[in-house]
């Protein structure tokens, strides 16, 4: 337990102090959202209607950004070997690394949503719905991404292959996240059903992600 907490603190410190993890992701998120009106035109009614979809897409892409360094940095400086040799189960270590990664990259995206929602003219209730679905959904994105990050550790163009591997697997999260967020705009459909399924997807990713990522890391050598 102590080792896991130490790892969590270390990973978060590294993320905050090196290469600007959290601000970079949020900046990318902001840029994507700012680009959309240039492509679609400044029609606020249209932006308001597709706002949740834009925010979800932006968050999905932003969550991919730092993923390729998740294990690759540890692999390069040798700390991954120490992690592999330690007596703590690798699945737990991987899960803790995922949590640290989410706290430093996923959570800031959720916090940024209210500001970005202003640009898209979202009302408070849809804004809250988007923030809530992202709060539940981004951990799933991170934990699915863990698998891709573990598979792409040693690859030279890891970032590119990572996106190809991970994005198809995130389709269900995107579908139910946007569907739940959209209920706040479209109206009578209930928020509960898609939101509950989104929660379920996140829980499934908590199970599959660490186990598959740990298996991939074990087969590295």
């Amino acid at each position: 337990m102590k080792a896991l907490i130490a790892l969590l603190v270390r990973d978060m410190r590294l993320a905050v102090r090196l290469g600007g993890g959290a601000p970079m992701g949020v900046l990318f998120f902001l840029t994507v959202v700012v680009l959309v009106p240039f492509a679609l035109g400044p029609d606020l009614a249209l932006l308001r209607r597709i706002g949740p979809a834009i925010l979800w897409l932006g968050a999905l892409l932003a969550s991919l950004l730092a993923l390729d360094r998740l294990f690759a940095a540890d692999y390069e400086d040798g700390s991954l070997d120490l992690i592999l040799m330690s007596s703590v189960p690798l699945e737990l270590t991987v899960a803790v690394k995922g949590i640290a990664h989410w706290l430093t990259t996923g959570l800031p995206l959720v916090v940024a949503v209210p500001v970005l929602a202003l640009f898209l003219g979202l009302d408070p209730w849809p804004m809250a719905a988007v923030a809530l679905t992202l709060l539940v959904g981004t951990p799933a994105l991170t934990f699915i991404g863990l698998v891709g990050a573990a598979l792409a550790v040693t690859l030279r163009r890891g970032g590119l292959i990572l996106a190809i591997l991970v994005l198809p697997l995130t389709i269900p999260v995107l579908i139910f996240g946007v569907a739940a967020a959209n209920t706040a705009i479209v109206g009578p459909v209930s928020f509960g059903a898609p939101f509950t399924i989104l929660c379920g997807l996140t829980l499934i990713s908590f199970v599959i992600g660490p186990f598959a990522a740990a298996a991939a890391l074990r087969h590295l050598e």
Partner: protein
Amino acid sequence: MPVMDLANPSRFLILVERVLPWLAAVTVCVLAVGLYQALLVAPDDYQQGATVKIMFIHVPSAWLAMFCWAVMSVAALGTLVWRHPLADVAAKAAAPLGAAFTFLCLLTGSLWGRPMWGAYWVWDGRLTSVLVLFLMYLAVLALWRTVEDPSRAARAVAILTLVGAVNLPIIKFSVDWWATLHQPASVLRMGAPTIHSSILVPLLIMGVAFMLLFLTLHLAAMRNEILRRRVRTLRLMQAQAGA
């Protein structure tokens, strides 16, 4: 244990050399019968006309598209659990075939959709999930190509294949849910649940023919892969001896 006997690639190669010509001959015969039945004997649909014939290619392709992933999943288990030396060869040989069958399914479906629905592509649940399956096949192929060492690539791909095998039903379910949300009455529903035997029999023959075709191509591709690896090893040894 026959499966364990085949773990020896040389013995497997001997078996393939013996079986492959016969298998290829049977495949050609069944395919010929199936195509004859499908294209010349089976009647035109009263509504769709001759375009219904596309189905005889389309439906078996769709079956094979899913079957190939199943083969890859079993092979992935073989790689990860038993370290069977031929399992990763089987997985690698099946991936391009699966991608090809999926592409064939999408292509024929799209050609059928143009005259029938008036569009090459519709964001329907089934079409979309097959498209995602195609993307997953391409991801697997990309991963095979990026890792140089075959045995390391095999383990990485095996994990991706198994994660895909767990996720594909989830994706299928979500896409169906999404599609029904977007378009309530789907055009894809068949008019009647039963297919008349004049169409069903050729379809089943074509299904068997495609299965045999897959088996033939798969065995040939496995043989080629084994030989390719031997060439690679020989080259590496030569390079080491020269150095």
